C-alpha cells in the first residue's frame, strides 16, 4: 500500500520475569546479576508487522496468546524486552474504556481532563464537547459526577469521548462489546465511519464475525508467536483450527463408531460414549448425582467424534447416565450457550414429549439428541444435565441431579461465500414471491417461488 506505514513493529519480544517470592527480586539485585532467581515467561516472541494508513488490522488468538501484551506495548504502557516499534501520528489506545476518568469529576470535566491525559493538547476536546454530549445521550447526567453513573452510562461517555477525539491510529481491545445492543450498533457504525475517514485501526477481538467483517488483514497469535498474518477469512480458519485442534487431539484415539443406537448394542455404545467423553471432571460439575452423567460426547452424523459443524447441519449429542438410586421421573437434556454465555437453546426429553420412564438403581441410559445447528458461525459450549421432575407441580421446573458445564467448545463454521442467513439463528422461513404486470418473465402458471427451511 503506502510507502510509509503508520505502525511498524519489528521483531518485538516481551519477557516477564516470574519470581517465586517477592524478595527473590531483591536478592537478584543485590547479587548484581550473579544469581538468577526468576523464571522467564515469553509473552511475545519476534512479532513483526506493519500497518498502512487507513488499514484495519485485526489481532486474534486464544486467551493468553499475547494479544493484550502486544497492544500494551504499542500503547506505550509496557516496554518490549527486545525489538523496535513505531507508531506515527496521534494514537489512541482503547485498552479500557474510561481509563483516566476520575469518579468525582462530572462527565464534562472528565472529557476535558482525560483527553489531556491521553496526550491531546489542552483545549482540543473543548471544541468537540457538544458532539460528545449528543453522542453519549446522557442528558443532564453529563454535568453530574461520574461516580453516580450506571455502568452503561459510564461506557457511553467513555466511548463517545474516544470516538470524537479523532485519533489517526485507534487501538481497540474488545471494547465494542459493551452497552446495550443499540449502543453497540451505533459504535460499530462509528467505527466504520472512522475507517472511511482514513483512521488506522488495530482491532483485537474474540468475535470472529466482526473481525472478518471489519478488518483488511488479520494477525493470529498463539502462545506469543506469530502464527499467521494475512487474509481475514484465512486467519479465522487458522484460528478455529487452533481452537478445535486441542479438542480433536483429545478424541483422536477413537475408532469410528457405528452410529446405531440399537438396544442390543447398548454396551458397545455406552463404552464408545465413555471413550470419547468430553466431561472435564469435578471443576465444572454441579449437582447431587443421584442420576449421574457418566460420559457425554458429540458426534457427526456418521458417528465420528466432532466438535465442528457447518451451520445448518446437525450433530448428535450423546449422554450416558446412570441411576445411582431409584429415580421416579428422570429427565435428561442439554443447554447450548453462545460466546456471551447466553443460553441459546435448552431442550430435554420432557420438552420433546418423550419422557424417560422411571429408572431403578443401577439402570443406565444413553440419550442421543440430534440437533440441527441453525446458528451463526462462532463458538458455543454446552451443558449436559439430568433432573428429576417428581413432586413438582410446575412442569417447567425440577431438581437438578447432575450438571456438567462448559463442554465443547463446538464450532459452527461457514464455508460458502453467500451466507444462508444473517443474525444469531435461522428461523423456519417460507418465501412466497408473486409477480404482477407484464414485465414479469416468469411463467404465468407458476408465479410463486417457494423455499422452505427448517428443522425437519
Amino acid at each position, binding site marked *: 500500500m503506502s510507502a510509509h506505514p503508520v505502525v511498524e513493529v519489528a521483531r518485538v519480544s516481551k519477557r516477564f*520475569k516470574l519470581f517465586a517470592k517477592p524478595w527473590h527480586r531483591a536478592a537478584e539485585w543485590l547479587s548484581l546479576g550473579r544469581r538468577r532467581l526468576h523464571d522467564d515467561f515469553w509473552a511475545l516472541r519476534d512479532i513483526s508487522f506493519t500497518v498502512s494508513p487507513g488499514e484495519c488490522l485485526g489481532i486474534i488468538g486464544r486467551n493468553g496468546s499475547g494479544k493484550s501484551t502486544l497492544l500494551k506495548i504499542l500503547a506505550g*504502557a509496557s*516496554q518490549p*524486552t527486545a525489538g523496535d516499534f513505531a507508531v506515527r501520528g496521534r494514537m489512541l489506545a482503547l*485498552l479500557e474504556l474510561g481509563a483516566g476518568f476520575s469518579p468525582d469529576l462530572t462527565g464534562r470535566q472528565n472529557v476535558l*481532563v482525560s483527553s489531556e491525559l491521553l*496526550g491531546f493538547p489542552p483545549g482540543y476536546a473543548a471544541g468537540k464537547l457538544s458532539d460528545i454530549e449528543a453522542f453519549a445521550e446522557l442528558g443532564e447526567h453529563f454535568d453530574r459526577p461520574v461516580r453516580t453513573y450506571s455502568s452503561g452510562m459510564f461506557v457511553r461517555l467513555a466511548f463517545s469521548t474516544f470516538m470524537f477525539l479523532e485519533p489517526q491510529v485507534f487501538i481497540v481491545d474488545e471494547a465494542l462489546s459493551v452497552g446495550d445492543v443499540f449502543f453497540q450498533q451505533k459504535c460499530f457504525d462509528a467505527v466504520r465511519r472512522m475507517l472511511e475517514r482514513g483512521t488506522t485501526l488495530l482491532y483485537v477481538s474474540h468475535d470472529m464475525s466482526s473481525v472478518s467483517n471489519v478488518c483488511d488483514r488479520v494477525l493470529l497469535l498463539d502462545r506469543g508467536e506469530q502464527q499467521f498474518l494475512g487474509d481475514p477469512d484465512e486467519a479465522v480458519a487458522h484460528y478455529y483450527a487452533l481452537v478445535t485442534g486441542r479438542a480433536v487431539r483429545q478424541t483422536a484415539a477413537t475408532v469410528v463408531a457405528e452410529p446405531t443406537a440399537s438396544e442390543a448394542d447398548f454396551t458397545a455404545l455406552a463404552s464408545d460414549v465413555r471413550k470419547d467423553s468430553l466431561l472435564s471432571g469435578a471443576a465444572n460439575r454441579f449437582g447431587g448425582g443421584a442420576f449421574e452423567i457418566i460420559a457425554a460426547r458429540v458426534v457427526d452424523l456418521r458417528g465420528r467424534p466432532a466438535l465442528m459443524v457447518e451451520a445448518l447441519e446437525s450433530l448428535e449429542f450423546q449422554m450416558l447416565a446412570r441411576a445411582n438410586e431409584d429415580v421416579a421421573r428422570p429427565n435428561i437434556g442439554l443447554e447450548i450457550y453462545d460466546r456471551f454465555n447466553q443460553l441459546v437453546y435448552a431442550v430435554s426429553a420432557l420438552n420433546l414429549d418423550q419422557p424417560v420412564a422411571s429408572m431403578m438403581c443401577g439402570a443406565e441410559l444413553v440419550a442421543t439428541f440430534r440437533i440441527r445447528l441453525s446458528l451463526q458461525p462462532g463458538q458455543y459450549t454446552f451443558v449436559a444435565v439430568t433432573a428429576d421432575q417428581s413432586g413438582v407441580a410446575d412442569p417447567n421446573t425440577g431438581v437438578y441431579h447432575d450438571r456438567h458445564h462448559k463442554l465443547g467448545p463446538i464450532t459452527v463454521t461457514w464455508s460458502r461465500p453467500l451466507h444462508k442467513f444473517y443474525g444469531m439463528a435461522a428461523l423456519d422461513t417460507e418465501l412466497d414471491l408473486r409477480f404482477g404486470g407484464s414485465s414479469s418473465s416468469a411463467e404465468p402458471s407458476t408465479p410463486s417461488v417457494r423455499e422452505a427451511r427448517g428443522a425437519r
Partner: protein
Amino acid sequence: MFRDLWRYRRYIAVNAVNDLKSRHIGTTLGWGWVLLPSLALIVVYSVVFSQVMPVPKVGLAGSSVSFAIYLACGLLVWVGFSESLSRGTQSLLESAPYLKKLPIRESVFVAKSVASGLLVLLISLALLAVVAPLMGHFPSLVWFALIPVAALLCGMAFGMSCVLAALNVFFRDVGQALGIALQIWMWLVPVVYVETIVPDWMRGFFWYNPVYPFLVASRDIFLGYHLPDGFVWSAMAGWMLLSIVVGLSVLKSVRGDLRDCL
C-alpha cells in the same frame, strides 16, 4: 523526564486539588477537613503549653517566642513533609489502573501525589499565619518566603518518593515500613524539642539530615522574621536536587519491570 512533568503540569495541578477534594467529598465540612487537623494541632499545643503546663519561652537569636508557636511551626513543616512522602510512596500503586493502560511517565503520578501534599502544607502554613496573631505573634511580609521553602521541601519529597514508590511496587512492605521510619526520623531532627538541649558535638550531624535545613529556614522566617542565610538555602537546594536526580534515575532504571508488577 522533566519534559513529561511539564507536559502534564495541568493534569498534575488539577488532580492534586481533586485528590484533596475527593478525600473529603460527602462530608459535611468538605474543605474544612483539610484545615481542621492543622488547626487542632495548633490549638492543642498552644493550650497545653500556655495553660496546662506552661513552658518558658524559646530564645531565638535575640528574640523569644512561646514554645507553642515554636512547636506548631516545626510540626506543620514536618507533617507536610511526611504526608507528601507517604502519599508519594503510595502513588504508583494507587495509580495502577492508569499506569497499566496509558503511556504516561510514572513520575507524573508521583508528582501529582506530592503536589497535593504541597497544597496541604501551604494551606496549613497560611492557617498558622492567620492564627499566630491570636497568640501574640504578629505577621510580616517576610513570611511569604515560606512558599519557596515549602516548594523546595516538596521537591525533595518528590525525589525521595520516586525511589520509595518504585520500591513499593516491587516490595509492598516498603509502604508499611515507611510509617515507622518516619516516626523515628521525626526524633532525629529538632521538631518537637529545642536543639539547644542536644550536646554540641551531636548538633553538627543535623546537617546530614535532609529535613533539618528546612526546619531551620522555616523557623528563621516565621519565628525570627529574617531570611535564612545562603548556606541554609544551598543546603535545601542541594538536598532537593540530589534526591530528584537519584529518584528519577531509579525510576528510569526500573521502568521496564515496574509496570509488569502492578
